[in-house]
């Protein structure tokens, strides 16, 4: 898989398929094959949802100035989708299965507000007199 902005990305999918067991399954290997298949499916569901989330929160934003809030957004997205708690580190772990985040170049857009210098000012509402 090629990453964005020229960064290269390592796919770890093949590795995972060989193992046949997700990182999130309990230690005990289930005796019935259908049960482990079920676990694989939900893992796949999570991964799919994550990829869906990446359409809203592009990977490259995970390297820029907004990375913490973007990660928070991804976490919230998954939490909402599966109605169970997710943690940011869990999300990063999931991402790590597909992408090598360190290789991504941050995309510091020119038109971003933080790249321009302007004097601080309070909005007019701060100076409004109280309504009678």
């Amino acid at each position, binding site marked *: 898989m090629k990453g964005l902005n020229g960064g290269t990305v390592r796919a770890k999918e093949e590795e995972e398929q060989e193992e046949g067991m997700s990182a999130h399954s309990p230690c005990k290997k289930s005796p019935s094959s259908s049960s482990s298949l079920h676990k694989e499916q939900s893992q796949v569901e999570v991964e799919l949802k994550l990829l869906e989330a990446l359409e809203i929160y592009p990977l490259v934003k995970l390297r820029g100035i907004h990375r*913490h809030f973007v990660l928070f957004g991804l976490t919230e997205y998954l939490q909402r989708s599966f109605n169970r708690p997710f943690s940011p580190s869990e999300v990063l772990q999931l991402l790590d299965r597909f992408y090598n985040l360190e290789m991504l170049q941050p995309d510091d857009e020119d038109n971003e507000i*933080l790249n321009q210098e302007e004097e601080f000012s309070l909005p007019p*509402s701060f*100076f409004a007199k109280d309504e009678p």
Partner: protein
Amino acid sequence: MRYFKKNAQQVSRWQRTRVTHQNGTESQNLTIKTPPFVSFVFVSDILNLEHKINNYFVQQGVRKESPMEMGRSSTGVSGDSVADGVDLMACDERLYVQGEKVWASHKGEWYPAKVQKVESRMEAFTYFVHYLGWKKRWDEWLDTKKLMKFTEADVQKQLAQSDRPAVVKNIKPGQKNKTKISAAARGKKGKGGSNFKENCLITEENMLNIEIPPTLKKQLLDDCEFVTHLGKLVKLPRTPTVDDILKKYFVARVRKNDESKEAIQEILSGLRCYFDKALPAMLLYKSERKQYEEVTAEDIPPSTVYGAEHLLRLFVKLPEILYDAKIEEETLMKLQPKILDLLKFLQKNQSTYFLSTYQSPEELDPEMQE
């Protein structure tokens, strides 16, 4: 020849525009200093300047059929080939320039906006503005009366001087107006043809809604007063620093097995990240720049030097900063109470975290020179 006009100082940015002949060929070495929105200058314009000066900007403005890019400034050449010709200055009361950030009044409400185009009509200037955070279809032409300079110093003066109503019902896109909240608007996801005014409670494009508590608002006003009117500065470095405060909040707020512990940590890290970048970009008053240069030499992060006074300013700008992150509305709504909680923590500790007085630069100077 020099033409001095009374309002020359109101043009904030100048450029060099190449002079062209009517047939389109550019003259070799002649450029003229003009305001930025001028696309090109004809030789004939210069020759007849004395007569044309009042019509000058009527002719220029934005010409759609021009061979050059519309509205773009054709900047001059490098130093050595510039001949200092005529310096043209604004011939009329043109207060705002293309690209300038302003406050714009739409149906009596003030919004942050950006001037996209300037034109001269009937001896007065009119400005095409884009409301920041709103879709392009709200862009409109406004007169000078409907605009205000964006920097604070001007805002106060303008409000005092003009015969505008004293109450400025500011509703920055996204801010709640206590008296009217439309449930429909709150749930909306950015579609919808409802009119601008009704929707001014929630912006069409997602912006975080932060209600700063009244005592902290007063703190910001005092802060403004100290720095911009009394010419004072915050004594640096501060204790506690922004970094300290965020850490204190985390310790106070999060219990050991709190599920959302990591999420809160992520938000706090995000705020620290924003603070370090935003401080020099948009959290300083002009008079604080020099001090900033001095204390942050050698790449010292602002969050380890500045304190609550400047952290509070971040919250004023946070909706705009976050807007660039393009966070979903649902997530923003989750984020809002967490930010508010942090503000309440600041409010609770207001007397210990905030300075009650600032220093004059002379008082600070001898210490800084050590």
